């Protein structure tokens, strides 16, 4: 489709009815918002599930009004855990940073009128929504939601309800949902890659792309390669469950006293396929956050990103190495112990580009003129959590040390900080940063700061003590603490974490209030409220269909030209031609 016909198409959209404009829209901005609100719904449900788990861990015999029988059973606990992990990983950490913000801002930042394949884009969203509904429906079927965790290791997940409640229909719906999600992600990633390659504005060379665009591009490539493998693995798991195949099921299984007729499969095969997806998935969740944080740190430090090329290269290096480290999830799995050493060295190597990013973020701050508005605070918070969660990973990257910490709460602390909290801080930074562009209004700055302080302190109070529970031997995925005698001593820490979790969750209500109230009645935002340089700030807030009101921006310089010596203002927008700058482009920066 040529750009002209795309704009005509977009103009048609504007005249269409409400359904066509806001529900079955092919406009990347509407689709981005749809993904965003889906992620909001998912994160709310996922958080409630985790609070129920935290509550049960500390007060296991308390009566809960909405639980059948009043007291939570072990299988209900495991069902909550499985659904918490799955919903958060797929429908929040994959959906919000990449599908929501990527969809909304990638075309805007490269000066494109829409995604390369708008209808495919719409299909991606609706498939993701379908996957979400199928996932939630697992709660409603007999036996309830699956209990095998988000990793769904067979044989537990491969044999039906003989292995436990939830492993019948619940697990089937889980696999179905994951497969649908895989298709949606594959379609989405093709769209992201094509758009970035084909639809950049004139002058938008690769090294003039904002680091956000680099991150979304590399994330899309990871999605394409990783979800394809999860899809294949998921199909094999379905076949094992319903077609009596034995891809993951070995001979000689005796389950609940019943001899099984399967034979020839390997449970480790699933683990390899799953983690070949699962580890890149961590980077799918965090890379867009890295891009956003680099972008925001430069904007609010009024300085160019320190080491732009090193940053872009580090994103690519992390993406590439991310495919070579999956075995570090399997050090105790029974895999060949020599391959553990290889995976270990590759895993510590991925710490190098990660550290390079951290150093460059610090380099960006140094010598800057730091303006602490909400996006900046969450970006700095991201850096702190990324450092904490990244360094705790160096322990788990070594097979010998991992034998002590594997499957303890230490691991839960590690991945929640680096993949969950850091990524969420990236999402929140992006929300505060781009809210004026998305809704044409501004969020309350004082509520934003209050939200930051409570969340930053609260999250550290939840997850720092969790390391110590793990070091002292607290085992994850235990429905209560009666399984081993030494676990009782860790209950005071658990109580502290649970109380901190409830306070932190309550603090998110401040965010929701600020967010929804500001959509309705926030202060009106101008085109470029943060004095930023990139193309999304050169058009209306929110941008109309077609994005640039029929004009096509050209790009004349890199994305982070802040505080250039001799310039009339402390930021040089990417789209302003040099001659307009010379004639004092300050007044004209809104017209291109």
């Amino acid at each position, binding site marked *: 489709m040529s750009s002209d016909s795309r704009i005509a198409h977009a103009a048609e959209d504007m005249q269409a009815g409400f359904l066509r404009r806001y529900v079955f829209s092919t406009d990347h901005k509407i689709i981005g918002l749809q993904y965003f609100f889906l992620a909001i719904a998912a994160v709310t449900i996922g958080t409630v599930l985790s609070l129920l788990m935290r509550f049960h861990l500390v007060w296991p015999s308390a009566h809960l009004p909405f639980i059948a029988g009043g007291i939570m059973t*072990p*299988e209900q606990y495991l069902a909550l855990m499985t659904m918490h992990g799955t919903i958060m990983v797929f429908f929040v950490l994959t959906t919000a940073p990449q599908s929501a913000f990527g969809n909304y801002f990638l075309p805007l930042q490269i000066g494109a009128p829409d995604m390369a394949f708008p209808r495919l884009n719409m299909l991606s969203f609706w498939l993701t929504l379908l996957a979400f509904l199928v996932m939630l429906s697992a709660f409603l079927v007999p036996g309830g939601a699956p*209990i095998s965790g988000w990793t769904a*290791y067979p*044989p537990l997940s491969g044999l039906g309800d003989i*292995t*436990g409640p939830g492993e019948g229909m619940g697990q089937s719906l889980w696999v179905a949902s994951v497969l649908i999600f895989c298709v949606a992600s594959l379609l989405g990633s093709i769209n992201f890659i094509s758009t970035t390659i084909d639809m950049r504005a004139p002058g938008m060379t690769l090294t003039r792309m904002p680091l956000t665009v680099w991150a979304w591009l590399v994330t899309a490539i990871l999605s394409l390669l990783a979800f394809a493998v999860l899809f294949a693995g998921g199909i094999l798991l379905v076949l094992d469950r319903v077609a009596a195949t034995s891809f993951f099921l*070995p*001979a*000689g299984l*005796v389950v609940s006293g019943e001899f099984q007729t399967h034979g020839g499969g390997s*449970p480790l095969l699933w683990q390899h396929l799953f983690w070949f997806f699962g580890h890149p998935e961590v980077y799918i969740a965090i890379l867009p956050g890295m891009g956003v944080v680099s972008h925001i740190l430069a904007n609010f430090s*009024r*300085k160019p990103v*320190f*080491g732009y090329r*090193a940053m872009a290269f580090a994103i690519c290096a992390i993406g590439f190495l991310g495919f070579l480290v999956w075995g570090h999830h399997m050090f*105790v799995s029974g895999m060949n*112990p*020599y391959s553990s050493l290889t995976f*270990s*060295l590759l*895993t510590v*190597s991925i*710490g190098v580009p990660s550290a*390079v990013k951290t150093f*460059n973020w*610090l*380099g960006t*701050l*140094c*010598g*800057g003129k*730091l303006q*602490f508005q909400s996006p900046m*605070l969450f970006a700095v918070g991201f850096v*702190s959590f990324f*450092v*904490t969660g990244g360094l705790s990973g*160096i*322990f788990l990257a*070594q*097979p*010998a*040390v991992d034998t*002590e910490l*594997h*499957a303890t709460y230490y691991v839960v602390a590690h991945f929640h900080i680096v993949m969950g909290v850091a990524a969420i801080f990236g999402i929140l930074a992006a929300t505060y940063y781009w809210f004026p562009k998305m809704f044409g209004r501004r969020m309350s700055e004082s509520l934003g700061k209050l939200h930051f302080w409570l969340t930053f302190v609260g999250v*550290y109070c939840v997850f720092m003590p969790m390391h110590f529970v793990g*070091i*002292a*031997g607290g*085992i*994850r995925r235990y429905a209560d603490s009666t*399984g*081993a*005698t030494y676990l009782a001593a860790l209950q005071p820490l658990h109580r502290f974490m649970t109380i901190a979790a409830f306070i932190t969750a309550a603090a998110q209500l401040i965010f929701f209030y600020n967010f929804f109230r500001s959509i309705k009645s926030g202060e009106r935002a101008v085109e470029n409220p943060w004095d930023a340089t990139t193309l999304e700030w050169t058009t209306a807030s929110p941008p109309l269909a077609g994005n640039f009101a029929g004009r096509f921006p050209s790009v004349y310089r890199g994305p982070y030209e*802040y*505080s250039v010596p001799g310039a009339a203002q*402390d930021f040089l927008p990417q789209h302003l031609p040099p001659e307009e700058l010379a004639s004092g482009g300050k007044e004209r920066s809104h017209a291109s």
Partner: protein
Amino acid sequence: MYDGVSKVSARVHLRGYASVALLLALLLTILVAATVYVFGAHLYPAPPPISQDAVQVDHQYNLTLYVTGAAFVLAQLGLAWAVFRFRDRGQKASHIRGNVALEILWTSVTVIAFVGLGILGRNAWAGARLTPAAPDAIQIEVTTNQFVYTFRYAGPDGKFGRLDPALVSAPTGNPLGIDPNDPAGQDDILAAELTVPVNRPIELLIRSQDVVHNFFVRELRLQQDAVPGMVIPVHFSADRIGTYEIVCTQLCGLGHYKMHGLLHVDSQSDYEAFLKRQALDQ
């Protein structure tokens, strides 16, 4: 655009940034202080190791703690310092795009620190996992199913009897499916708890009948999944008499949290008495 911000409101802004920067720097410093204190005071220690391999693991753990601890302190305090030092006080930001020498320096330092740890970490792994068990090691088979451990000793003939999954029948007293026609199986000894002699090499043969389980003894720093279809050997030599807990760390179903066993490290004579007692019981 600075859309007409007056000088007064700009000053208010700057004062606001100063207090925010101070608070953020303070919180980061408290984070560092609290973390260093809890690690330094050993408030939540792992239990003491009871094997040479476990001592090696602790050694590597401590080394990693020092290196990453130093990085943690420097990075968080560096962040705190930068946040406070470079807050907006009306100054002009410097236009620096980067520094190749610095990039090379910090990349090299991280390569040496992280990859160095990875290479050193090999030693602790090699002793436990890359060398086979001593030839005179006592072999004990560990079988897991939902949600119990069963331990099998080979008996006086030193040989395990053949297993046939089709014969598995816990109610009739054959939870492992030992073939009654195999003479090697006649003297096999089954036990619900694991008893081993102190200071003797032990080789565990870990297997599972149904789903993936795990065998974890914290004091041995020994953790191994039990995977159906595989027999996974691990070995250790415990040097302290006592009773230790075995826990399952691989999600195995609704009873996962209570899948639990005991490891008794006994003197040689107590161990022999245990074997005699078990043999009489069967």
